């Protein structure tokens, strides 16, 4: 146990030095760390990363969003309904159908002539094609289960669960991208945007302790669509419930005209936008100017040419922001949205339009924000507690074990360095509970040394020679140390698995601390002891 080959000695010192190297950047003063001139002189192979402070320590906002799966489903069903209607009319003879209904996961309708069933099903086929991406991934689920009743002429399209799951996942992935674009456009530094589980997104913005603006800009779905205004019935009739087929009521933010009846058919949508900028209209009011790609330009041009003198509405998230009259065809593919904005609102809307639309609604589930001042205070309090605890434990170890206490303390100092090095190297996040984890580790890390020293004492009372006693002490304590630490590791792992946010940070430092403690207490302090024993060759051991 006490003999170390040269290679072994080298490896142990190597690990210790590596830990020190990774821990070192944390001790550089901030002004040196941030100074590019000095930074460029440090060779690139040296680690330069410092401990990643959690939001509770550096201040900032944490937001947990959930994609509204209902809105994903509703959107899919709504488009399916419209697509089905279009497909049935796409060729001659037109297949008349009525009673279009959405209930649960199903769109259903009734053919006016049940004998057209076969033709209808054939026309609906494109709806149920397997999406291209799925074929590649070997998944051959069709989007719908189609059932038909020849007698009544009823056809139902039921969205499969697999499709809903895929759509949700898709929506989350796209949402993450959109949110990243939006937050980057806002100019916040180092935001973290992560997908969590099936339908959740975590957004962390360091340094921003007021999450309101971030939330406002994230929660906007920014689905911009252009529709014709429906004038076939008056708005009062529509409000009374007589909404013509293919039309829908939307809200506006204009108190003089709180509701508007628009055609459901989308003339052009935001996906054809190539640019959006804040600008001003003729009367000097802030507005948003936009331009379409060629596809969008053609569609928008045709639609405006066909409808001169009528009104169209620009809907943002299903709310009309403006509904101007088309004075002349707009052929250039660009236009202006004039919705009574402040400059900021116009600017934010331009950001939203540029960054793209969110595929589904998002809801905030959990929100934490910490001011930078409080974070500083927490670090200071944690550091004081750490130093006092560290000092008390070291003092006690010397009082209890004399020289051997110093060995244990050497191991403890290396332990702290290794924890710091591991946190920096792995870029694990240090949270406030994480600091508690480090402090607790200090108290528990010496346990391995205590086990060993007590064992050596026992062996000495049995009359063994010093070297022999130390040797046996280490050997006999080994399995106990392993057993004891594995049980604590089980607890730490469960914290990592089931904990969330700051508490996970506690699990991280606890787990790291277990590994470094076993190494320093069992391996490193044994090396120190062996150096001393071989050099001093004591006749008796005072322990």
């Amino acid at each position: 146990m006490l003999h170390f080959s040269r290679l072994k000695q080298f490896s142990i010192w190597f690990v210790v030095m590596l830990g020190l190297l990774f821990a070192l950047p944390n001790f550089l003063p901030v002004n040196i760390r941030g100074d590019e001139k000095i930074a460029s002189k440090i060779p690139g192979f040296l680690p330069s990363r410092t401990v990643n402070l959690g939001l509770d320590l550096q201040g900032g906002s944490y937001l947990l969003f959930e994609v509204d799966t209902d809105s994903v489903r509703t959107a899919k069903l709504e488009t399916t309904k419209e697509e089905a209607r279009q497909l049935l009319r796409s060729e001659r003879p037109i297949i008349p159908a009525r009673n279009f209904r959405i209930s649960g996961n199903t769109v259903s309708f009734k053919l006016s002539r049940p004998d057209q069933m076969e033709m209808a099903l054939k026309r609906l086929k494109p709806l149920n094609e397997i999406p291209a991406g799925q074929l590649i991934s070997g998944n051959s689920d069709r989007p719908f289960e189609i059932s038909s009743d020849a007698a009544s002429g009823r056809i139902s399209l039921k969205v499969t669960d697999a499709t809903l799951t895929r759509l949700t996942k898709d929506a989350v992935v796209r949402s993450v991208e959109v949110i990243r674009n939006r937050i980057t456009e806002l100019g916040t530094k180092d935001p973290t945007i992560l997908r969590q589980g099936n339908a959740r997104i975590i957004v962390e913005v360091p340094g921003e302790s007021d999450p309101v603006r971030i939330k406002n800009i994230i929660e906007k779905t920014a689905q911009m669509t252009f529709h014709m205004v429906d004038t076939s019935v008056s708005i009062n009739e529509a409000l009374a419930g007589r909404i013509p087929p293919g039309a829908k009521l939307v809200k506006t933010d204009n108190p003089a005209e709180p509701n508007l009846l628009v055609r459901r058919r989308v003339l052009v949508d935001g996906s054809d936008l190539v640019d959006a900028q804040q600008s001003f209209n003729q009367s000097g009011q802030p507005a948003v100017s936009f331009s379409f790609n060629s596809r969008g330009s053609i569609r928008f041009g045709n639609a405006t040419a066909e409808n001169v003198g009528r009104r169209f509405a620009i809907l943002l998230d299903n709310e009309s922001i403006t509904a101007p009259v088309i004075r002349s065809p707009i052929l250039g593919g660009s236009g202006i949205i004039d919705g009574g904005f402040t400059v900021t609102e116009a600017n934010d809307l331009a950001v939203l339009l540029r960054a793209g639309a969110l595929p589904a609604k998002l809801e905030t589930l959990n929100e934490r924000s910490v001011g930078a001042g409080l974070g500083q205070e927490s670090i200071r309090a944690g550091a004081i507690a750490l130093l006092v605890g560290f000092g008390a434990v070291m003092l006690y170890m010397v009082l209890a074990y004399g020289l051997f206490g110093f060995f244990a303390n050497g191991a403890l100092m290396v332990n702290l360095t290794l924890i710091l090095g591991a946190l920096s190297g792995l870029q694990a996040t240090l949270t406030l509970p994480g600091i508690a984890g480090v402090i607790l580790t200090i108290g528990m890390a010496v346990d391995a040394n205590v086990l060993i020293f007590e064992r050596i004492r026992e062996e000495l009372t049995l009359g063994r020679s010093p070297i022999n006693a130390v040797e046996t002490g280490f050997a006999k304590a080994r399995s106990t140390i392993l057993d004891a630490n594995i049980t604590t590791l089980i607890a730490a792992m469960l914290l990592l698995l089931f904990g969330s946010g700051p508490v996970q940070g506690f699990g991280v430092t606890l787990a790291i601390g277990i590994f470094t403690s076993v190494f320093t207490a069992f391996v490193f302090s044994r090396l120190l002891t062996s150096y001393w024993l071989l050099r001093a060759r004591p006749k008796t051991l005072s322990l």
Partner: protein
Amino acid sequence: MALAFVRLIPGDVHLRFIRYRKIAFAGSSLAVIAAIFSFFIFGINLGIDFKGGGNIEIKTEQPADLKKIGSIVRGLDLGEVEIREFGSPNEVLIRFERQETTDPEISEERLQQEAARKVHEALYEAYSDISFSFDGDQHATISSPAALSIEKGEKAIESMGLVGLTLTASEDGKSLNLLLPKMVVDQKSGPELQEKLYQQVRYKLLETYSSVTSQRTEIVGPKVSGELVRSGFTAVLGALFFMMLYIWFRFEWQFSVGAVLALAHDVILTIGMFAITRIEFNLASIAAILTIVGYSMNDTVVVYDRIREKMRMYKKMPVPDLIDLAINKTLARTSITSITTLLALIPLYAFGGEALRGFAATMIWGVLVGTYSSIFIAAPLLMLLGVNRELIEND
């Protein structure tokens, strides 16, 4: 070295722990029953992590008047509200319970956020001496008995990302004129929009000129809190299960049952402590319980290891004597490790800040209970469970 080491436990102790097992079992059973009773009678003080709602931590310039803050916040009609000093006389924690609604159209998640905003707004208003007047259109005046710094206001508006507004100071510097842009919708004016914009700016300015600063805000909606309860439970039960498995694998089933019973004892007594002390039970408490489980298991394993070793060594010694011997031999280690852990935890309790105080207190309790249970419960339980010596010897 003729140094006298500090030794709490002399090297040759022979305490008869087994003899006191009946007292220990009876005492522990009573304590466990008491803990369960207090849990059901008093309940535990669940934090927002598990109940939903919000925590708002504010800092005041002068020592905070809890009564005043209490009456302001209670006036908002947010249900049960807890208000207490947090760390220093200038810091106050306001906790409001989960806001509920029966209206399916209203998002409960959103309600929590609105409640937090209301609390902030009311406190900012109460702790600032500025007053507002708004003409419902483009003009608002912010006045104060003392001079108002216009730079602060401009900075605040800028931080909101608003640029279409202008702020001008009056001659005496005691009031500011705010000019809002005219909101026009389809060439008709929108008073509601105008009001909305004004309210946003008003909130920001109140925050800016108030002597109260918001330190920390946490809002937990009903969805997340439900999940946290479940995952907390899973984590603790999972830890017990895997440790039982590990001990079973390393020792015999009697050991694993003994160890888990001792752990359950620790967990129940810790929950009892939460019921009696009213310390807030939050995510950190789950972390503390898991660590206590790990710590107590650690202690138990050390004693068990020694029992097994002695069983192999002294084949003829009766089991009670063996257990006593093993406990005595490990007593020094058990107590010293408890002491060093407490030496680290007590500074954490004293200096680590209010946010970690509950955690530190729980851990201190857990270390004491865990140490006790390893010696007085886990080891003597082996006798009751009947250890099979032959299996161990052949291991």
